[in-house]
């Protein structure tokens, strides 16, 4: 049985083309991937991301627990501040990537990938068991999967603040990047209003009670449509994140991936005390990681796709494989993300990509592929 978000009927009314996305019925597009992508980059885009999972961690030991669970340093978060992090297994592989929001000294809010929600929560409960054994005094620690209680709407793009401000008295200009506030939308709907996102644009992610989804969605569309706001489906969500080289679980990240190979070593704080996977991550790093994640552009005509093999410039030596690829709508350029042998990962390195039996020329280029002009 496929799951639906609180906004399913809205998507159908808007002409969204509904697909099965990891067990959820969600729109892949409304007017077209290109059109929606450009709207998000130039005005604003509205996304239903309610399929994402939300987990509450509460109690005096929540700081110590979250910090043991994830690789980044959640103890350093001020109240109302957020961070991006990986959550690893004991082998140092990535179970998922997530956002951690600190709502109070003893209250964290974790946002995980939809398709991983059940797996992630089971992992958290397992780690909780280990944590409790080592910290018997942590009796008031509470972890709960609250995914079905939240509608999550993202509004992203240069006009996101202007549009969202029409729904709330909370002064949004004072909410800085990777900070959030808790306030009312539409006069009384409680919301976590976070300046976070997955597009490379300015904008917000709004966490509201599940049943208030349609009301907030419609109000945002009403406020934003005259300014160019468009609903954006999963298709453009993927091209937007890809232009930023933001990793996606199942593409760039897996339970076998060392965070340092995936280019997310910056969220692994080896100096913060022990955490799940730490020893294995260090060991992997010391042994030398055979591959590294790079961004590349195709010099020949074609589109790299996940799974295509990457070879040396002369086409003789296989170096790795594409994890994500597309024609980048903002750049009108075919781009890809790939794991390649470490000695072929430098910017400017010429490679080839095997596309249907032809070895097409590509070059390692700096990322993010797209830089916003404001």
């Amino acid at each position, binding site marked *: 049985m496929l799951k639906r978000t609180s906004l399913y009927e809205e998507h159908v009314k808007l002409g969204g083309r509904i697909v099965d996305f990891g067990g959820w019925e969600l729109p892949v597009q409304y007017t077209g991937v290109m059109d929606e992508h450009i709207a998000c980059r130039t005005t604003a885009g509205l996304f239903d991301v309610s399929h994402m999972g939300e987990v509450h961690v509460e109690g005096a030991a929540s700081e110590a627990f979250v910090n043991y669970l994830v690789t980044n340093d959640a103890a350093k978060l001020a109240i109302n501040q957020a961070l991006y992090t990986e959550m690893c297994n004991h082998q140092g592989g990535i179970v998922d990537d997530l956002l951690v929001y600190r709502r109070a000294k003893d209250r964290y809010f974790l946002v995980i990938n939809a398709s991983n929600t059940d797996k992630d929560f089971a992992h958290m409960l397992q780690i909780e068991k280990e944590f409790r054994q080592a910290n018997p005094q942590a009796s008031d620690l509470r972890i709960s999967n609250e995914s079905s209680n939240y509608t999550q709407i993202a509004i992203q793009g240069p006009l996101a603040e202007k549009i969202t401000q029409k729904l709330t008295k909370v002064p949004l200009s004072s909410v800085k990047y990777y900070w959030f506030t808790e306030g009312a939308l539409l006069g009384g709907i409680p919301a976590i209003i976070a300046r976070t996102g997955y597009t490379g644009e300015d904008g917000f992610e709004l966490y509201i009670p599940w049943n208030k989804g349609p009301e907030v969605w419609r109000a945002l569309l009403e406020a934003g449509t005259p300014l160019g706001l468009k609903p954006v489906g999963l*298709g453009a969500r993927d091209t937007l994140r890809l232009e930023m080289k933001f990793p996606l679980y199942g593409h760039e990240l897996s339970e076998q991936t060392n965070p340092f190979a995936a280019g997310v070593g910056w969220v692994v704080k080896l100096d913060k005390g022990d955490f799940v996977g730490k020893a294995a991550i260090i060991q992997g790093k010391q042994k030398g990681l055979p591959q590294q994640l790079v961004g590349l552009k195709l010099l020949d005509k074609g*589109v790299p796709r996940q799974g295509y093999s990457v070879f040396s410039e002369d086409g003789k030596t296989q170096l790795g494989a594409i994890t994500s690829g597309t024609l980048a*709508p903002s750049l009108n350029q075919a781009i890809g993300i790939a794991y390649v042998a470490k000695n072929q990962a430098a910017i400017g390195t010429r490679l080839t990509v095997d596309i*249907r039996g032809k070895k097409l020329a590509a070059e390692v280029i700096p990322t993010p592929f797209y830089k916003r002009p404001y």
Partner: protein
Amino acid sequence: MNYPANLKYTKEHEWAKIDGNVVTVGITDHAQSSLGDIVFAELPSVGRTLKKGDTFGVVESIKAVSDLYSPATGKVVEVNAAIGDEPGQLNKDPHGKAWMVKIELTDPASIKDLMDADSYSKYVASLK
């Protein structure tokens, strides 16, 4: 959607316009609409021989790669190079300007079982 009566159609959503022993081939409006924004097209070289059902190229939207299947057996005698430069034409005018290849028939029987516009419309409706 409107499927011109002077074209024949395949279940793989190609159309074929038959002029004597030359068949002009493209993708249908249904195909372009299902694919969404088409960003890349790979077409065969002139001179390639094709059997009915052979893949003769691919079209790619932002999200997906789709094979193209020849509706006829014959030899490619002309290729619409403009499609390679401007694949978006396939979204704008799939039954007209955005034709893909012309095939000179070597087996006239190969086009016998193509659908007419009416059958194709019903076929597309049955997919929903």
